[in-house]
């Protein structure tokens, strides 16, 4: 499909605290091309994570429209949205959010449980994803047996195992030391350049943001400026 992968028009998000209305995003417009690598920066409360959640269909906007690969996700029902998320988006969290009772391999296999793949096919894909992030030898380890950097790489493997259109990363290096953070960013580079994955990354870290093709600065719910 031609055209941008992500199109955001007049996106508004407000939260209610009792009678008080707290605006977070105020009529934001945004376009992200296929294969782009975008870093979202801005001070706390600027709306970066809210934007990421809305792009991933984890939250509903107060107003405006989000189209991803031509699909207006605001029009999808709860089950359709869940199915769309499973198919189209890979999430990478700051705190990795792996299930502690499952092995690395089982964590990566998790999104594939929602597909019609057989168990051997699921395992083959999970192992390939783990190999891609360099963790084949840690497949049977549980998260508590892995370092933070390794956990995040398992998280990345889980995000890419379904071959989604879009990777949404919320402070992916925020809890890692510099070396582990660099390894994760190297992976993102490879996924973007070699696999053509579209990546949107929220970060406070200018070094991490510098790896992206575009850096968008949000302030008070609007796009303040753009670099790159």
């Amino acid at each position: 499909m031609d055209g941008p992968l992500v199109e955001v028009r007049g996106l508004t998000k407000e939260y209610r605290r009792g009678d008080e209305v707290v605006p977070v995003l105020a009529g934001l417009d945004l376009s992200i091309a296929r294969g782009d690598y975008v870093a979202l920066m801005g001070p706390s409360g600027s709306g970066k994570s809210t934007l990421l959640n809305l792009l991933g269909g984890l939250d509903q906007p107060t107003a405006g429209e989000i189209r991803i690969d031509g699909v207006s996700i605001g029009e999808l029902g709860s089950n359709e949205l869940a199915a769309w998320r499973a198919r189209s988006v890979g999430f990478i969290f700051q705190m990795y959010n792996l299930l502690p009772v499952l092995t690395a391999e089982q964590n990566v296999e998790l999104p594939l449980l929602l597909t019609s793949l057989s168990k051997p096919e699921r395992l083959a894909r999970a192992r390939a994803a783990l190999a891609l992030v360099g963790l084949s030898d840690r497949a049977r380890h549980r998260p508590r047996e892995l370092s933070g950097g390794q956990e995040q790489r398992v998280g990345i493997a889980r995000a890419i195992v379904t071959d989604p259109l879009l990777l949404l990363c919320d402070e992916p290096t925020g809890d890692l030391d510099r070396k582990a953070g660099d390894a994760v960013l190297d992976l993102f580079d490879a996924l973007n350049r070699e696999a053509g994955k579209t990546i949107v990354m929220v970060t406070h870290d200018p070094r991490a943001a510098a790896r992206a093709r575009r850096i968008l600065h949000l302030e008070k719910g609007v796009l303040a400026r753009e670099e790159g």
Partner: protein
Amino acid sequence: MAVAPFALLPLLGGSLRRHRLRLAFTIASILIAFLLFGLLAAVRNALTAGVEVAGQDRLITTNKVSIIQGMPRAYFTRIGSLAAVRRSASLNWFGGIYQDPHVQLVVFAVSDAYFDIYRDLQLGPAGLATWRADRTGAIVGDGIAKRYGWKVGDTVPMKSNIYRRKDGAGAWPVKITAIYHSENQDPNTVFLHYAYYNETVTFGVDSVGWVISQLKDPTTVETTSRAVDAMFANSRTETKTSTEKAVAQSFANQIGNIGAILTFVVSAVFFAMLLVTANTMAQSVRERTPELAVLKTLGFTDNAVLTLVLAESLLVTLVGGVLGLGTATLATAALGASLKSFLPFFQIPPLAYLQAALYVLALGVAAGVVPAVAAMRLQIVTALRTS
């Protein structure tokens, strides 16, 4: 996108393994509840088995004052002469003791027609003929025969804790003339000849304890029972005639309303278990809020999350229920052997297993439904923020 239920198994197993000690305690509580249920069901079965096998065409006549008061023997003859009665038999409680004075045996002195009425006591025509021909003969159940090693032809000394012999002898020598087998009657009963009993006891001579009447037409039970009691109304010994089923029920009710007791105890225990299991499930879901949010983020639907939590709850109650009922089955089998003389039908009836399966289902759903619905309604963004 629907999730195949079996695809949730790795998640289910992982969730259950998270707090093994807590899981073990929860399962142990459910196990005890179902163990208690199984044992009480076996007790109820033992106490009401007589009611279940009681015949619809049989009437039992006893002294109106009490069943331990006898009736003149002539009553037996007069009842038997009624047109509606096919045949009748008399029954006297003997209070048998063999070897150990602390072990009460079920011994009755019966008239000849008894075995024509209770044809489900299988002893063969030869055995019955031998018994009828021998005044000191006894027909014994295969259960008691096995217990004491009795064989046909053996003569055993039977004592009574009620009666003494006129001749001062300590025991009644009785000759085992037949051994009966029955699918639904107590296999531990001993039957003596009424004539042998009546001619040797020091008191209660020419009286009978019960008269059992088999009717020609089962639909005449009401009119015949009224006719029997009317026959002896205003006499010194009035009678009370009921169907065998009503008498058996009345016996069971003397111990108490077993059904109500069982229902009350089981309800109380299951309610406590419901609270324990629901608390465990709620705690488990609360602890896993961020993980459930991650599952939803990955594309698991609200219904899949609901199913996961409910399945977890059902699995816990299923394991506890199976272990509890299994233990109860083994316990009743082990206890049944030693209780055989008092409670020959001390076993869990098939219906109780079905009831238990329904309780497992109900307990699992009731304990899991609130946390499952909470998990289903979880807002992903809010839940992820708590991680």
